[in-house]
């Protein structure tokens, strides 16, 4: 049967990490004799719908938002805590050295959802805004920052920023008119969504790896023949490797593109970043369940 793969961004292999991952993945499946179709972003529905369809076994593979999968099992949210890891290499060490994939899939598999891959889609996230460079938390006092969810609200509050929750489609207007002054994201995001026309400053806070996940239907995956599952696993491995290779070139290129489109990029020093880290680390246990925070602090220490 046809393997449906739901995308989450436009078909742009240079800017969109998950699209590139998915093409490599699908190509390997097809070369090995399995039928696979890529569905454009939103064609089969938004994040909530894709999760629902995957959990019913009606959609085989989907590029998805981490926090959506986190609804079923919050373990995976640990990897996205601010300043818990300092590189994608460290993230990969955590994934390889521990039983990571089984750990994050233990509970969600019961809901029919399995995470196939954790995909970094750009450099570590920073802070973009329309007003002035942000060097230390003190610079956030006069900024009203857009937060995506409760977790971001708490992170921003720990630094003393004002927050406002705005849905993504309204951001361009909100930034233009000053309802919000900025947001947290990877350097490529303002470029992809053309917010570079309004944003003036980007501070490279190196907050956390911007990750998306590829999830698949547990019913589908466990129902695959041994041979087919081997093909799928190999395709995942191949796509992961391609993604990490892609990432090497993309981090600096993203910052360059951001600069070229008129956004002033500020490289925060280690000391400045530490100020942000010192404020946010004590609230880890408010951002994710305490046992998960502890687990990831331990994992991160072991893989430094």
């Amino acid at each position: 049967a046809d393997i449906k793969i739901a995308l989450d961004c436009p078909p742009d292999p240079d800017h969109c990490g998950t699209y590139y991952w998915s093409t490599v993945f699908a190509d390997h499946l097809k070369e090995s004799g399995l039928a696979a179709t890529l569905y454009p972003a939103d064609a089969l529905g938004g994040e909530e719908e894709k999760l629902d369809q995957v959990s019913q076994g009606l959609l085989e593979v989907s590029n998805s938002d981490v926090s959506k999968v986190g609804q079923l099992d919050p373990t995976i949210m640990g990897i996205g805590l601010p300043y818990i890891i300092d590189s994608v290499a460290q993230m990969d060490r955590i994934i390889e050295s521990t039983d990571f994939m089984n750990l994050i899939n233990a509970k969600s598999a019961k809901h029919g959802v399995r995470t196939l891959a954790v995909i970094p889609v750009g450099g570590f996230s920073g802070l973009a805004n329309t007003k002035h460079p942000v060097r230390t938390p003190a610079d956030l006092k006069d900024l009203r920052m857009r937060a995506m969810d409760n977790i971001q609200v708490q992170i921003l509050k720990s630094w003393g920023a004002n927050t406002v929750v705005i849905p993504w489609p309204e951001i361009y207007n909100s930034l233009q008119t000053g309802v919000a002054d900025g947001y947290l994201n990877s350097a490529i995001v303002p470029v992809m969504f053309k917010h570079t026309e309004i944003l003036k400053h980007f501070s490279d806070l190196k907050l956390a790896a911007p990750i998306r996940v590829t999830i698949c239907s547990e019913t589908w995956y466990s129902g695959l023949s041994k041979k087919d599952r081997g093909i799928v696993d190999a395709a995942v491995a191949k796509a992961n490797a391609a993604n990490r290779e892609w990432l090497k070139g993309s981090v600096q290129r993203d910052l360059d593109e951001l600069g070229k489109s008129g956004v002033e990029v500020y490289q925060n020093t280690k000391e400045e970043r530490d100020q942000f880290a010192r404020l946010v680390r004590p609230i880890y246990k408010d951002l994710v369940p305490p046992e998960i925070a502890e687990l990831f602090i331990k994992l991160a220490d072991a893989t430094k």
Partner: protein
Amino acid sequence: MFWLIVTLCAVFIASGAAMAYVFGTAAIMAFWATDNLKYLAIIPQRIFSQLDVFALMAMTLFIMAGEIMNRTGVTRNLVHFSMSLVGRFKGGLGHVNILTSVFFAGVSGSAMADAAALTNTLVPAMQEQGYTRRYAGAVTAASAVIGPIIPPSIILIFYGALMQVSIGALFAAGIIPGITLALFLIIANTFFAHRHNHPGGKTEDIPPFLPSLRKALPALSLPVIILGGIVFGVATPTEAAAVAVAVAVGAGYLYGGVNKDTMFKSFQRTAILTGSIFTIMAASACAAWIGSLEQWPQKIAGIVTGSGLSGIWFLLLINLFFLVVGMAMDIALALAILVPLLGPVAIAQGTDPIHLGIILCLNLTIGLITPPLGGCLIVVSAISNVNYWTLAWACLPFLLVELAALLVITLVPDISLFLPRLLGYL
């Protein structure tokens, strides 16, 4: 199979079934006909996600504000004031309607929602001054098409991100085509005003300016607060809509129109109208999903790209295609699926991506007032209580005018590109 479904739907329509239920029936039968019955299990979540949209609140809130304004005397005083300004022109309120759309619409991203919001104030107002309901409805539906072309426009923002072109340039590019379209509509409105002897003109009793201004002051705070709130960034469009409700109640109170009965009736009708529109949206969401699964848009787009046409002929074919798509599909979804397929082909053939964005945006929104399926027609007919076909018929001259404008805008790229060039975007 296809014809069986079409025939059945025609029979259901003839029996007096509501459009929402006929759409829904067609969608369910499409699951069956394409051998995808197991996918029916996705529908409850599909419906939920279709409704769980922040920007959709703007529609509900603007309908509510309109209901309150109509019942508490706010609308009457606004109209009175408008007449003191435009009363000397025949069809003046029709012009006011068109100009309101120019500034007002296109903020929610859904032309259907914008049309719903505007119909509720402008149609009763025009009717009170002696226009027929159907004409008022037709002008409102037709001018709703202008909204998304003139900034602010969520549709253009969406296109800009998809095609990686400057949103500022797109905004600039939309202004002259939008004004062109508005001018075309104003000319058509003038023509009809003389032909059907609409209110206004030299013989009309024009209300004196200053007294009507004084009386209209509380009512005038509404457009000022809404537009000012959005333009100066005090509030998002959705929030501005909620503020509009509050201001409508305040202004209505000053006119002595606020009481338990008017408030209850306003909310009651808002609930029923929103409910009707929700059912339509739920049904068309199911239809769109099965189309996406079966990749119908991609297949038809394949015919378009494989047509062997080039240059201007290719653009005209795209026009036709998107016009049809606009009738049936959600605009954002249509852009997300089709622009990556067709955009690069059109650009490779020499079309400027900015120009293309304006054409596509216009196409999709004009599709909304094109019978037999136009979404704006359905919504305006529901809210204004005008029979669908009567409205479609009244809208037809405006539709033809807009198609003519679209043709001109397609053939003369400079109309779109002049301002972006002037402002240094190109």
